[in-house]
């Protein structure tokens, strides 16, 4: 009997690990729920990428819902996301605002010229200071902001067709329902 003890001890451990894996699938350790959801988006004033003299602020964008997409030319995953945005962007029914993050404007323009530009408005945050207020900690990240300037949905990582279908489109549909 005592020779079976190590086996029983180990099986107990396996149960614990199995539980750990199951627990982690239910409780995503990496998803840090953004405290900003359903809060007003932080105020910002940022230069337009192609014309730095033009400053775009949060108030300029009020009135219509928009999708703020954080991207950078140095970000590998953005290259994955970009073709998806090109195709799906026009079907979303909201404005697409490109948020160029910690990037040299020349690099960003070259990158957009090469891969195409799906954005209606392009903001340049070269220092990344404003992005801190949004809680951005990497690119790509996307924020859905409603007509009153409230953040309604946030996605970290590239938008894939699946994410757009399952999460983003329902969130947009919910916005249009409550619109007066």
């Amino acid at each position, binding site marked *: 009997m005592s020779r079976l003890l190590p*086996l029983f001890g180990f099986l107990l451990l396996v149960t614990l690990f199995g*539980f750990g894996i199951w627990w982690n699938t239910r409780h995503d350790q990496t998803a840090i729920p953004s405290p900003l959801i359903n809060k007003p988006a932080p105020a910002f004033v940022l230069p337009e990428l192609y014309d730095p003299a033009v400053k775009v602020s949060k108030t300029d964008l009020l009135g219509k819902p928009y999708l703020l997409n954080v991207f950078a030319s140095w970000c590998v995953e953005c290259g994955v996301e970009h073709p998806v945005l090109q195709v799906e962007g026009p079907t979303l029914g909201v404005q697409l605002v490109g948020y160029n993050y910690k990037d040299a404007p020349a690099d960003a323009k070259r990158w957009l010229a090469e891969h195409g530009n799906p954005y209606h408005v392009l903001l340049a945050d070269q220092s990344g200071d404003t992005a801190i207020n949004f809680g951005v900690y990497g690119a790509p990240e996307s924020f859905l902001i409603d007509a009153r300037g409230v953040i309604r949905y946030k996605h970290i990582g590239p938008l894939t067709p699946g994410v757009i279908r399952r999460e983003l489109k329902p969130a947009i549909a919910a916005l249009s329902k409550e619109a007066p």
Partner: protein
Amino acid sequence: MTPELGQLALILALLLALAQGVLPLIGAWRGNRALMAVARPAAAGQAVFVAMAFGILVWAFLHFDFSVRYVAENSNLELPWYYRIAAVWGAHEGSLLLWILILNVWTVALAAFSTKLPEVFAARVMAVMGLIAVGFLAFTIFTSDPFGRLLPMPGDGADLNPVLQDPGMTFHPPVLYMGYVGFSVAFAFSIAGLLGGEMEQAWVRWARPWTNIAWGFLTCGIVAGSWWAYAELGWGGWWFWDPVENASFMPWLVGLALIHAQAVTEKRGSLRAWTILLSIFAFSLSLLGTFLVRSGVLTSVHAFASDPRRGVFILAFLTIVVGGSLLLYALRAPKVAGGKPFALLSRETVLLIGNLMFAVASAMVLLGTLFPLIGDAMHLGRISVGPPYFGFLFPLLMLPVVLLLPFGPFLRWGKGEASLLKPVLLRAGIAAAACAIVAAFFVDGKLKAIAGVAALVWLGVGVLLYALKRWREAPRGKRYPAELAGMLLAHLGVGVFVAGVLLTEALGVTSDVRMAPGQTQHIGGYDFRFDGVQRTTGPNWRADQGTITVTRDGHAVATMTPQKRTYPRGQVQTESAVDAGFFRDLYVALGEPMDAGNIEGAWSLRLYYKPFVRWIWGGGLLMMLGGFTCAADKRFRLKRIAESAPVGALQLQETRA
């Protein structure tokens, strides 16, 4: 095209591993020599294909093949070539490939050095190694393909984690894996021993050098990791009881117990079941470490990105390997306590106490590491026990080991003589007490430091006394066989290590200061003058570099240049400056400019004076050296074993008949 060849090579290696794992087992069971003979060529072929896959991944990194996702995620155009090679094992997929490569190195070594072992036994050992390789190759191919493509191919990649861009990191993982994977050999030997049943004693002697070498590598890997954490992380600490560190420490502790248990079993035939159990545990804990690091069950500073599919796969693998071997143990382990009897006062007893302490310490570390998980299971929330738990329990468990260690060698097998112990107790005790009293004046009566000096003298004199005894009593040329010399070296290493830990902790000085250029701080008898910060650049980073001139009584000691580096992807990494010395380290880490943006002004700095910190790693290296020296003992050469193992030879003839 080449990355696909790498994938193909891995698949072929998997098929060969299957052949190596299954056919020789059937051969050993049915007495079919042709099937048993498959083991070695299959192992060689598997090693060739794995080396090829590894080479192709290295090639992809060297040639910036960003169409390979793994390369794109872990390197970029600016990364120097040596870090591009280190990047191969910088993340999950590649490090798994390294694991497999090293498993193959061990298997090939085993194939080469086991030709004199009984055929059936060797076939079983090789088969177990093959089955382990099957598990890891399947894991790589099905869940963690390092050759996956990223299309369209990006123009440039991301970056290797800057924390890993350090010379220490280039060789820490390979050496550590040599240790982890090396325990698979002892494991394979004990499984083969269980399967064979009747010759359960002979294999222990054959397994001993392998265990010692694996343990030596593991020691070296842990030392390298500790040194890297000290030099790179900028906190000046050398051990953090982090889950990943614990994952390497548990097999180390069990391996330590195993080394000593194997000595008892080989020489006296006692503790047979315990030795088998420890062999299984040592390797199981290596696997467990792999599981903990890669499954995402625990969060840690250096855990790999996780994917639940991977967790489930490793857990299934772990269950099969460990559960299977423990079941085999339950069914086949020696039923009666065998071996020669031993008295209460004997070398066996001392080794048994040591074994018990190491095993309990390992269980303690396991419990502490898994605590957050247990907390989840009991709905207590995520609780973790940190350094206070480990820092209290571990020294407590090791205290009896340190106290008993000098007596071990003086005790005879079977029945020791108390009369031999008294002079040891007196001499080592008086020397330790005398040195402690002298030391008390130098260290302002700090208890920890006094204990450190006493422990060093206690252990050092103990080792010296035994060395003297051998010198007087043994005939010339036979005074210090490698096994004995290795033991003495390793035991001395324990003393050096303990002294290093206690003296650093007691006498170290840490000071967080704000310094304007030209200002001087006085710490630990040294004057640190801050000479301001300039910008500098490296192959793939920009940095703010401070200059600190250190003097002692007006004499220049060192000029130190700590940096705060910014890598191309915006990651910031501190590079502390260390002025190393035999008796003390000076350590400076650059904080933040007091006035953001004005780097020429005042900065916050962290200054350390760390006496004897190098002794910690010195002690570790002595232990490693001890392990390697033991393994070189002539007794373990297989020629003599073949002669002195009639049981094995008999078995061989039976199979041939």
